[in-house]
């Protein structure tokens, strides 16, 4: 009997909740833990940043933010299996490199791009640059180009296919003949260059401590705007050839999230990027904090996707 009574009370209550759910949901958001999908294995740059961001967001939102790692295929496995199909209720969001949203899906022939996600903001910028061993007979971009002209088929180490079209475009602009050495795993960058197995490589940012220790030198910046944090004086490929390889840390969610939820998350991300812990972590792994609002980031990534598609379609 008692159970029946409870049921009788519960049914109208549930109905009331259901009726007002659409209005109440956004106001009460978040009322349960949020999952932050990181589409790489635990331990990399993206993961470290996400794990610094999560506790700061937690404090602001008042609900736990749980990091879930699902690595594979340059981030496309995690985005496709956990983020795209999730409910756009704001309880599943992702922290990924923009290369997992733009270049990798194109190269792998997958049918999604930043347009198919709700972009909440960007939080950091990868220090993409062309680097070489400090022992090499050149330590500026000018010297390297001269060296590469005299010695055709310089070996360019390609970590991931994403960098191959960039390398070819730069070589073409300078009229160089190059040989591309395929590689895998960011950790192999420094040893490959130091051992002399390749002449130059494009680094996504992990070169900075090696530059500080004197093992590697930076030759050319690949940022679309602004200077590299640790080596602001190197020339920029954007200025020389109009070529860049921008990669940012993006916070995103499934398409169709309500404006209220996006606003709540946007505010949390913004405040979190200004928190002491996040800034400290970013300083340790030597990434500049680069915050963009939801609107700015959406515009930025969509433009980047359009131009990348045009380049890769050639």
């Amino acid at each position, binding site marked *: 009997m008692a159970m029946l009574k409870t049921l009788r009370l519960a049914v109208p209550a549930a109905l009331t909740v259901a009726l007002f759910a659409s209005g109440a949901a956004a106001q009460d958001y978040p009322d349960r833990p949020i999952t932050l999908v990181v589409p790489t*294995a*635990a*331990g*990399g740059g993206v*993961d*470290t940043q996400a*794990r610094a961001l999560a506790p700061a967001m937690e404090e602001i939102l008042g609900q736990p933010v749980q990091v879930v790692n*699902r*690595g*594979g*295929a340059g981030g*496309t*496995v995690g985005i*496709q*299996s956990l983020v795209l199909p999730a409910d756009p209720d704001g309880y599943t969001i992702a922290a990924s490199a923009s290369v997992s949203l733009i270049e990798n899906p194109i*190269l*792998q022939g*997958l049918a999604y791009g930043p347009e198919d996600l709700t972009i909440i903001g960007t939080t950091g910028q990868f220090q993409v640059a062309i680097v070489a061993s400090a022992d090499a007979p050149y330590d500026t971009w000018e010297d390297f180009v001269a060296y590469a002209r005299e010695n055709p*088929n310089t*070996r360019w180490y390609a970590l991931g*296919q994403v960098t191959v079209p960039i390398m070819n475009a730069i070589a073409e602009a300078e009229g160089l003949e190059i*040989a*591309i*050495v*395929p*590689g*895998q*795993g960011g*950790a*192999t960058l*420094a*040893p*490959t260059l*130091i*051992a*002399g*197995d*390749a002449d130059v490589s494009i680094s996504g940012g992990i070169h900075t*401590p*090696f530059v*500080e*220790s004197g*093992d590697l030198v930076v030759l050319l910046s690949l940022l679309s705007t602004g200077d590299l944090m640790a080596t602001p004086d190197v020339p920029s490929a954007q200025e020389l050839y109009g070529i860049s390889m921008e990669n940012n840390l993006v916070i995103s969610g499934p398409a169709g999230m309500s404006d209220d939820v996006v606003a709540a998350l946007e505010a949390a991300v913004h405040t979190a990027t200004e928190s002491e812990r996040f800034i*400290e*972590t970013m300083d*340790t*792994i*030597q990434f500049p904090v680069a915050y963009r609002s939801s609107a700015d980031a959406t515009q930025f990534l969509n433009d980047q996707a359009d131009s990348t598609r045009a380049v890769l379609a050639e």
Partner: protein
Amino acid sequence: MDTIAVVVGQSFTLYNVLFVAAGIFLGYVVGAIPGLGKVTAAAIAIPLTYAMNPVSAIGFLVGIAKGSTAGNAVSAILINTPGEPSSVPTAMDGYPLARQGKGVKAMKIAIIASTIGDFCATWLLIFLTAPLANVAVQIGKVELAAILIFAMTFIAALSGKSLSKGLISGMIGIILASVGLEIETGTQRLTFGSLLVFDGLPLIAMAIGIVAVAEMVLQFEEQMSLRKGGEPGQKSLDLKTGEENRVTGKDLATVAPTIARGTVVGGGIGLLPGLGAAIASFASYGLTRRLSKDPDSFGKGNIKGIAAAESADNAVIPSSLITLFALGIPGSVIAAILAAGFTMHGIIPGPLMMRENPEFMLGLFGSMLLASVLMLLIGWIGMRLFARVITIPFTFLFSGVIFFSVVGAYLQGGGVFGVYILVVFGIVGYFLKRFDFSFVTFIIGFIIGPQLELAVRQSLIIVQGTSVWDYPVAIVFGIITLGVILRVTWSTVKRITGPTLSEELDS
């Protein structure tokens, strides 16, 4: 004197000793659970270290890594279900010993070999980090290709009775390892359009399936037939602690050279980024068997087999940290996870670490040596406790192992997909074992195949325009490889044409 004071002040505090011991204990327990290994243990433990001070946090993580590597031997020896590929050779001799009632002795040998391997490699890390890292960095792609081909020839040494069956399963391993995106152009290979295998089949889920699940099914079958035959379905294993389980001075003298060799092999292989514990323990096992006067006694319960595998397996851990500490390059999966732990505590692994955080580094070295000693203590005392696993009725053991195998495959194999892989390779493993195909060469093929492919393809581009004499290290390894191949061919020819042929057909 100051150095010693710093080490003592940082690492021999009650707080730190407790955390290192907790790490070892936790690692040992997780390692001793079939299907779970160090990567799972360390990945789960990283969030637990948030509130600790850096020295204790890293000591705790190192303790977990060391403890679980040693703990893996327990399930490998007692129930023939290694938690990781690197403990497979331990099971090859450990399980036969356990069946002879010498399980405790096998575990003792394992823990002694683990501790010595680990302890010596830790000193290597402390004193030779800088010079060894410079050597490791000079090992380029061409040298790596030569070393991998050399390691491949151990397949032949490990293929058991039938060389052709060993080669067949090795080739199946290589073919399955080619699943995923091809490295140079990104072409899909054998993916059938499924995104989940773009990065290849998950090794750990597959290895647990092929080793632990298949073994449980085989043991289940054995129990059923025992029951049908009117005998009670009791475990045939028996845990004696009497005379025959004592490790004598003679035993120690027998395994001492093996342990020394295992430590060198593990220390050397751990130094080369990406080669890892599995290759080290197989290589050490293969080498010991090849050098033995009585190679046929291996696989039937030779304590040298356990000593070879375990010393190399544990020596890899400190050694794979050498390139991490000196250059910021993690030499193994576990080193990469530790690197994440470092970063979380505000320390960037790499060349600047020693200069910027000398006190932390001394404290860490102290903790690592402490971990070696504690590992021996906890392993030795805990042995009786862990050994009770074989007194568990088979019904519970079976369900427990399957349960933990599913958990391990889920954690390390990309969620539910890992569980499917576990089931499929459980079935594959069952048939491999049933028809006497070597699952060992299968796993080695799977691990080395893709690395070798990448190294060879890179080398072909790199060597353009250079002379063969630019690569003396590669030449040396090439000659050794040829020597091994000739020896194996010679002994195979002798075996086929020799008088032993009829004996072999009879058996």
